[in-house]
Structure formats: C-alpha cells, structure tokens
C-alpha cells in the first residue's frame, strides 16, 4: 500500500469535490462533514466519469406515497444514467453488489493522502 498525498485539505471545501490524477487514475476527492472520501472516477455500469455527477441527497426508502428526503450531500449521481452511489462507501443505492471503487484517505500535516496499492 502506498499513500499518495495529492491535495491540501484547504483545496476541498465542505461539500466540494476535486478530481485528481493519481498514477494515471482519476479519483474524486469529496469532503462531507469535515471528513474526506475518495472515489474512482469510473462508473461500474458503463464507465462514465462518475465523479462529474452532481452531489445531492435523495429520497430514503419509505412507505408508499411517503417521501423522506435524506443523505443530503452524501450521494453522487452518475452524469450519464443517474445511478446513485453513497460517496462514503461507493455502494449503489439499488444493489449492494454494485459498487464504485473507493479508496481509504489518510490525513497528515494538512495534506490529503489517498491509499492505493503500489
């Protein structure tokens, strides 16, 4: 495992997203509630640039005709087909079997490090 320090914490404002290139791989770095998350900029459905999608909330599972809005700022929607992914885990909201690749993040001296193999 290697930690690639690619950004300063101040580069990513709260609710923001920055796409960086780490060893030829595009990665979206998000800041939610003061914590940082990293997602591969590649949708597992058809390969769209996932991290170019909007960051939003969504309607949570609910009773019929009831609407419960939640997860504000924690969901990214693929810019092609609108599939919703949990930014914190990369999981699709529809199926646990569908995941966008996510990477652990380490912070050191105000820098954001992305943990990758090699």
């Amino acid at each position: 495992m290697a930690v690639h320090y690619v950004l300063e914490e101040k580069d990513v404002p709260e609710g923001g997203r920055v796409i960086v290139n780490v060893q030829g791989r595009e990665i979206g770095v998000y800041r939610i509630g003061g914590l940082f998350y990293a997602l591969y900029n590649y949708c597992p459905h058809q390969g769209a640039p996932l991290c170019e999608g909007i960051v939003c909330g969504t309607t949570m599972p609910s009773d019929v005709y009831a609407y419960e809005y939640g997860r504000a700022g924690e969901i990214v929607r693929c810019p092609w087909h609108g599939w919703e992914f949990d930014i914190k885990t990369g999981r699709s909201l529809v199926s646990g079997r569908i995941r966008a690749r996510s990477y652990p993040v380490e912070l050191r001296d105000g820098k954001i490090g992305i943990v990758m193999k090699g």
Partner: protein
Amino acid sequence: MTDLGKVIDVDVHNEQNDADLVPYLPEPWRSRVARSGVGYSYSGYYSPVGVMRRDALPPGGGKAGSDPDLIIRQLIEPYNVEYAVLTGVVYNISTTHDPDFAAAICSAYNDYLIAEWLGKHPAFKGAMAVATQDPQLAAREIDRIGGHPDIVEVIISSAARAPLGQRQFHPIYEAAERNGLPVALHPGAEGAGSATAPTAAGYPTWYIEWHTCLSQMFMAHLVSMVCEGVFEKFPRLKVVLVEGGMAWLPHLMWRLDKNYKALRSQVPWLKKLPSQYIREHCYLSTQPVEEPDNPQHLVDLLNMVDAENMLLYSSDYPHWDFDPPTVLKRMSPEARRKVMYENARQLYRL
C-alpha cells in the same frame, strides 16, 4: 477505445436554440418564432436525472448537443464513429396542433441542418424531420429535401394521433420510398399535445413508467404498419424503430404470426407471415439496451429471431440514457460487426 472496430451511430441528437431556425422560416412563422419561440408541447413527465448527460453541456454554454466540436470530441473521435446520423429533436413538433406551422418548423430545421451541420464533419449524416399532422405536406417536404446527398433518412415522431400504419400516413411512406430513404420513428413527446396517451393503459404518474412503456408505442405502430399493408404497398420501404427497445421483438413476432394463422382473412393483402415483413423491412436501434442480470439472456433472446440482421447500434448522445458502443459484448464477433456497423452501412448506403 480503438479496439471497438468500426461504428455507425444511428441516433445522435444535435440541438439548436429556437432562434437558430428563424432565418430559415418564411413569414408569418418567422416573426412568430422570433417573438415566442417554437413552442413544442411536452409530455409533462419529470425526470429526476434530467434528460441530458450532465457531462455533455458545452463548456462555453448552450444546450447539450448544440456544439458540433464537443460532439466530435466526446463521441465521434473517442469511439471511432465513422458515421453519425443526426436525428435532432424537431420531430417532436408532431404533437402540436397546427399542421401548417409544424410543417414550416420541419422545413426550416431541414434547411438549417443542411446549412449548419452536415458539412461540419465527414461523419455527420442527416435525418430530415417531417411532421405527421398533414402527411401530404410531409411528402412534399421529402420530395424537396430528400435528394440531398447527406440526408440519409426521414424521421417522424412515434407520438402521433393514431397508429402510424393507417392509410392517412401512407403519403409519407410513399415519398420516402420514392426518394430511397428509410423512415425512422423516434419517441420523446408521447402523451403531449394532440398525441394519444403515452401508454396503452393511459397516463401513468411518473417518468419511470412513461419511459419504460415507450416500447408499447413501438409495438402498436409496428403491428399497425404490418397489418395495414404498408410493406405490400411500398415494397422498397425500410422502417427504423429508434429507441423503442429490442427484447419485445420475439414476443411480438410470435404472437402476431400466431394470430395471422387464424385471422388472416381480416388482412388478406398480407402475402407472408407478419414476422417476415418485419425481418425484411424493419430495423431496431439498440439503445437503451435492456440489461438483464445475466447479459447472455438478452443475446439468447435476440438470437431467437436472428435480430443481428435487424439491429442498428445507437448511442442517443447526449441524452441521459446514452449507450457507448461497448454494449452487446456477448454477441458473436460477426453478429456484433453487423449491429455496430454493417447493417447501418447497407441501410443508409454509406
């Protein structure tokens, strides 16, 4: 992405602002559109993901699909697209109420398409739009524009006032056949204006239902075209069902053939099994490709009706349900080559 082989994309939506059509319109339509816009009627169904691919908005502003350079950079070059049929969106005018205005908008668009798009890149070929409210006017427009070397197709809306095989629409097919052009049906305005309800059961509540049920519209039009004898009257006519789905085709062929065996006397002008007319005259575009959990199931289903000879790859760029030409990977290499390229090359004589 160079391992994809050659690609022809039969559904690419170029867009324009209403004001772009103004110079191509005669009065009284010119001042009307300059003042109030075209005024399409829309289905009224809201999509939570929008209708456009979010990464297809031109950086300099404007609508997705309005910048030829971005289409070239985002679609034509990366996917090795040899030809792209520009389908526009103007066919949607067929759900408005005034036949003369709808025809004028289509004529203006066709002149605009030829003047401002088709020369922009050698890959660009054009689908000329006609409105279905007055098929005689549509036929006149096909005769006016259809001979242009870069016009490869006539496109009409699948949202219509009646099943499109009926006799009042035949002048469109007659003119298309006369000009050697396939006729494409494209959805988008189902349920809008003076069109029929968007599903067989009426008006659903949400876009997810509306979009899923678009296939019903294509099934109904296809059955109508076969039974009304369109392909007997116009034996050289080809029809392209764009964006209406594929997986229903075996069901429809089997059910219609079965019924024909009992009910043939009602449509005595048919000389062959209905499925035979469909195989000989019809093409289906691939997008939005059905996605069963096991992708092989779709290929198995398509193989049951030799669909490799009837399918044409389409991306629907820049719309939200875009498919890249990496779909249908489970098809055999030879079948896939036909679907991605060869069927369209022959149909459009490219």
